[in-house]
């Protein structure tokens, strides 16, 4: 094994630092935190500033707005975005998840028209899979798309999705063949969220970022909104999950929370005894999270994606980050719940509210372990029967 980070990544990380330290970045970040829109705070102008610097899609090919960098550049980018307090969910969903799926499975036309714009965040995308009655059970979705003369008409409701209010496009899973099997009747569409018949309603959350309810009422989309083949939705979703569930964003948040908590705990000298031991324990565990995430990303880069490996990495990173957030509260106590002007206090208070959702969003822990069990614990998983 080789744990060296390539010099190109070191240079890239320095470049990211320079962009994130720039006064313009700080000003735009302050604007986001003001939440002038009364919702999450619109991060798109800040993202466009970062995207304009060409740092948001380092692993994509140059012709699609990237830098051809290896996966370690993406790891460095996420660590730094989180450390500088840049809200990263819209970025992860749009660039890392939807964008990477377009790169892997989209048509050449979709890649050429969408990816450069997504890399600069001139175009942003969200994911609309979950429905009121179908969360982890995605094969049960009921939103439909029916062919009409010039395209498709979509009807149904999606819910509990993040960042929909800030997205131009939605990668939407719908049922195109109600008679087909639960899996074969699903297709994916890239739906413009400004199309007539789309209604987006925010749902306040315990965490800082709201959920959304989205209604589709006779929403007409063109034929080229179809992503992949008709009926190929399930395999594309599985492919995306293998790429999405690197655990990287969960790891990056957990690491940042641990760094903030450690800074608080070491103000009066290095913590010793049980608190010091707990800190060492969390540091060791988050190091394992990072390496598991890197392993998934290396295999993705080599075209050797493994859904079970990804699922476990997501489980590990999210559970670890969650434990860190709760441990910070257990250790720091009441002052964490009533944050004053201290930025670290605010980070940990927000982390405490976000923590429960980490093992639900992006694949519930129980589902992740079901997938890992099926691949590695059941006999048929090992023999491939």
């Amino acid at each position: 094994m080789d744990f060296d980070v390539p010099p190109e990544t070191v240079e890239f990380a320095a470049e990211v630092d320079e962009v994130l330290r720039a006064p313009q970045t700080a000003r735009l970040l302050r604007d986001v935190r003001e939440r002038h829109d009364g919702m999450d705070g619109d991060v798109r102008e800040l993202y466009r500033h970062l995207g304009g610097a060409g740092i948001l899609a380092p692993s994509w090919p140059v012709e699609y707005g990237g830098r051809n960098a290896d996966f370690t550049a993406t790891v460095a980018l996420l660590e730094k975005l989180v450390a500088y307090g840049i809200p990263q969910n819209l970025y992860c969903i749009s660039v890392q998840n939807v964008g990477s799926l377009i790169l892997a499975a989209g048509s050449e036309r979709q890649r050429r028209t969408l990816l450069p714009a997504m890399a600069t965040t001139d175009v942003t995308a969200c994911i609309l899979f979950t429905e009121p009655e179908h969360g982890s059970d995605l094969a049960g979705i009921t939103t439909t798309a029916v062919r009409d003369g010039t395209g498709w008409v979509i009807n149904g409701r999606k819910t509990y999705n993040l960042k929909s209010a800030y997205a131009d496009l939605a990668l939407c899973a719908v049922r195109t063949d109600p008679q087909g099997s639960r899996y074969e009747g699903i297709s994916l569409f890239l739906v413009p969220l400004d199309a007539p018949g789309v209604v987006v309603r925010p749902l306040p959350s315990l965490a800082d970022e709201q959920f959304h309810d989205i209604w589709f009422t006779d929403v007409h989309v063109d034929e080229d909104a179809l992503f992949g083949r008709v009926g190929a939705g399930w395999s594309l979703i599985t492919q995306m999950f293998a790429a999405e569930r690197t655990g990287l964003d969960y790891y990056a948040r957990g690491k940042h929370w641990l760094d903030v908590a450690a800074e608080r705990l070491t103000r009066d000298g290095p913590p010793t005894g049980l608190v010091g031991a707990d800190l060492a324990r969390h540091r060791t565990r988050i190091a394992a999270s990072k390496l598991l995430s890197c392993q998934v990303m290396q295999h993705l880069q080599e075209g050797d994606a493994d859904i079970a490996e990804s699922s476990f990495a997501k489980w590990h990173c999210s559970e670890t980050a969650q434990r860190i957030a709760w441990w910070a509260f257990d250790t720091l106590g009441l002052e964490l719940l009533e944050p004053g002007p201290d930025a670290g206090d605010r980070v940990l208070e927000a982390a405490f509210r976000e923590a429960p959702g980490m093992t639900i969003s992006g694949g519930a822990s129980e589902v992740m372990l079901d997938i890992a069990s099926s691949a590695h614990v059941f006999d048929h998983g090992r023999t491939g029967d």
Partner: protein
Amino acid sequence: MDLRLDPLQERLRDAVDAVLTRTGEPYAQLATIGVPTLNAPERFGGLALGLSADIVVNERLGYGLEPLGCYRATAFALDLLDGDDMPTEHLAEVVADLNKGARHAVVVGAPGPASARVASDGRLWGESEPLPRGDIGLCVARAVRDDGTVGWHLVVPETGTCSVESIDHFGMPASRLRFDGAAARPLTVSTAHWERALAAARIRQAALLLGMADRILDVARAHVNTRIQSGKPLVRHQTVAHRLATLMGEAVGWRLVLHKAAWEIDRGERCSTAEVLAVAAEHARLASRTALQLHGVRGMLAHSTTATAYRAIAVESVRLGTPADLWLEAASAT
């Protein structure tokens, strides 16, 4: 960054696995593929390939449930000796035997306070903690001197002043070395050198424990797939499958942490590994306890694999410090 085993590590893994299928004394068998010299310092005829190679050997020994403590004890002793600039020509015969796997070295008094004592005439008295069983050719002992200071000493065991007693250590074969006025030569081991040697020893021990955990989880996995309860295999119960999936996945993460630590030590970028041994020890214990639980009463049978692993992991998980102590040490290192 490349998180796959490199070609040398893969060849070594396969070679150790093959050797463990042979009959005969495993330590001597390992010598036939050059393992005892793998990580040994060059001045002792070793290849100094580093811990990145050595951990693969120890993982596979663990997986084979062949703890072979004499292998790690020898490596630890030679690492400590390597810090002293004394001439070692007189040890040539012993070192040759170590490299052939005919005899092994031990370190006495590494964990906890030193109990052996050295008199002003340079003679060592006392007895060791439980040690690996085998023919001991060389001993590096930590002992209290007459002036109350604690220091390292080299002892080449001789009949009359040293005796070895075979003992049973929590059901595992072990030995105890008794010193009755053995000639002890003082060694100069700096704090930095001691820390490096201890860090390497802990990495080897962690590799062994992760290998043992892998094996017992495989045993448990096989059992729950074949054992039928209430009309279906045990594995079909989510509480069973998830416990094993969690432990098997955690093992992958801890192994990456282990390999990274070994890689950093090989590059001289790290000297503290208490936390790596702590997580490996805790993981192996949990794996052995879970495997025993999932086997039910049959897992409690004296000679079952689960019971054997439970004993072996218990012994090996505290050989270089308890997890509780290791975490406190890790806390002070941060």
